[in-house]
């Protein structure tokens, strides 16, 4: 079984968010880039399954410029066998899915994080399955391979669903797929540079969306302390200022 894990290159989750270009673009200066946390969990599960013997190869891929290569090499250090970078600026989910469709058709299982922690689009996985005409399963929180058969756990309203699926399939994975992201061992870090990282040109694909502008959420209002005896004032504040009821 061959697994493809899609890796989004996202700003570190503690990054201070700023915008440039009239609030039309995210300010990338000084940003530390990481593997999208959901993709990192997907990769961790893929590595665990490979160690258990059910997986032939793990490939990681992303759509991005050369600045994203350290993120791919981290994925190689964690345990992927090879990496593919499609050399273009990711524009929107459809554009990214169209790029990935050119390589993804050769794999049995495609793992993609349920969302990326930058734009939280949650769209690439579904679009990719549609473009490839593959099955897709969303909200996957568990994955096992037994005798070449893929079984998945899905999170559903009020419980979990265990399903067995035919490959090829796109799995859109979420929290629970692995407990903690794998920390790369030093051996892995040293081997990462020797593993193949293929750069492919982008294919023609139209953009379906464009950014009008970004806005930061309003800053958190200061906390007002009300004396414990003054319930009346608390109710007034809740009603008139917080408009809670």
């Amino acid at each position, binding site marked *: 079984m061959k697994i493809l894990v899609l890796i989004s290159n996202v700003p570190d989750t503690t990054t201070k968010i700023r915008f440039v270009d009239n609030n039309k673009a995210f300010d990338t200066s000084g940003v530390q880039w990481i593997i999208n946390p959901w993709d990192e969990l997907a990769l961790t599960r893929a590595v665990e399954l490979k160690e258990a013997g059910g997986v032939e190869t793990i490939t990681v891929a992303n759509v991005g410029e050369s600045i994203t290569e350290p993120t791919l090499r981290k994925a190689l250090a964690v345990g992927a066998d090879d990496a593919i970078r499609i050399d273009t600026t990711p524009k929107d989910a459809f554009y990214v899915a169209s790029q990935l469709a050119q390589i993804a058709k050769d794999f049995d299982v495609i793992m993609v994080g349920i969302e990326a922690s930058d734009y939280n689009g949650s769209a690439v996985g579904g679009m990719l399955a549609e473009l490839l005409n593959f099955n897709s399963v969303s909200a996957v929180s568990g994955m096992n391979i037994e005798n070449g058969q893929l079984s998945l756990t899905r999170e559903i309203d009020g419980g979990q669903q265990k399903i067995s699926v035919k490959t090829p399939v796109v799995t859109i994975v979420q929290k629970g797929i692995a407990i903690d992201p794998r*920390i*790369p*061992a*030093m*051996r892995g*870090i*040293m081997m990462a540079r020797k593993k193949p990282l293929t750069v492919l040109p982008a294919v023609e694909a139209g953009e379906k969306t464009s950014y009008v502008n970004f806005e930061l959420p309003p800053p958190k209002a200061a906390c007002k302390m009300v004396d414990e005896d003054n319930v009346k004032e608390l109710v007034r504040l809740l009603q008139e200022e917080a408009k809670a009821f």
Partner: protein
Amino acid sequence: MNFEFTEEQLMIKQAAKDYAERELIQDVLERDAKAEFPTRHIKNLAELGFMGMMVDPKYDGSGMDTVSYVLAMEELSKIDSSTSVIISVNNSLVCYGLQKFGTEAQKEKYLKPLARGEHIGAFLLSEPEAGSDAMHQHTRAEDMGDHYLLNGTKNWITSGNSATTYIVMAQTYPDKGYRGINAFIVERNSPGITLGPHEDKMGMRSSDTHSVMFSDVKVPKENKIGEDGFGYKFAMKALEAGRIGIASQALGIASGAFERALAYSKERKAFGTEIANHQAIAFKLADMAVKIENARNLCLKAAWLKDHNKPFAFESAMAKLYASDIAMEVTTEAVQIHGGYGYVKEYHVERLMREAKLTQIYEGTSEVQKIVISRSLLRE
């Protein structure tokens, strides 16, 4: 001049940071309170490659450079110096010494399991009456023809109980003074070795420190390191490298305390505003940051020199002296910034302050570092 780290160095720093923030933090207070050895962490960190970081991969090490080692030691020590000292002794005293001066057979038998982290190493130089005065070793290693016979006591031995491989300095030819000292590889389970009680320390309480007594302990001839009488020089060479580890540990203790103080000062309010807005606190933070940056640069310079096969004894002594002194200063200020909370264990800075103190004492006190530095200056 290049102040940029490589991608690999940054990945190792991140790996150490992730492990410390995710795992070490969980039981660091409990282990400190109970003086409990970090068995689980040493096993995990060994699997990640931290126990033989700089050992050549042909001896099962990770083959990393010393700069990576400084980065890793800083990150681990921000959270837990008991764990990082076990790593430091294993890497920069024991593995370094064996790789540089051991025979092929010694490397095959002893270095490989140490580098894999299956064995833990200890370095036995200090004695009840010979700490800084390492030239005067009372432990005897008598040449019995087909083996050596070890008798004496070693003090303050990090990992004294948990180690499987000891490197022991002992006097073979008392009339030759320090030129009569030899270094030996001694297996922990050799008959005749007994341990003193677990030392009840002020800080680094989760590392096990013991005195070790040798009573007619037989050591095979092939376990001697280097030529006859090489022991003192061997110990000094190993300590040169060890100082980079302890300097980076002190750096980590300082930066760990600083990060906590910085975060706290932006949250805690007094006189109507966050205390960081009071110049009394802001200036403390500025002073702490400058000291930490200086210590970091000294550590990295010593590491860079070592990685480029240039002499580094002078620089590693400066790094160790400075980093351990500022670790004491910075942690004391971090407690001060936290006020009463800083004196409470839950906030970690009091523990970091206790840990900082040891960095001025072990692997050469601050006074010994000044001897090394001044002699080097005056020789020129």
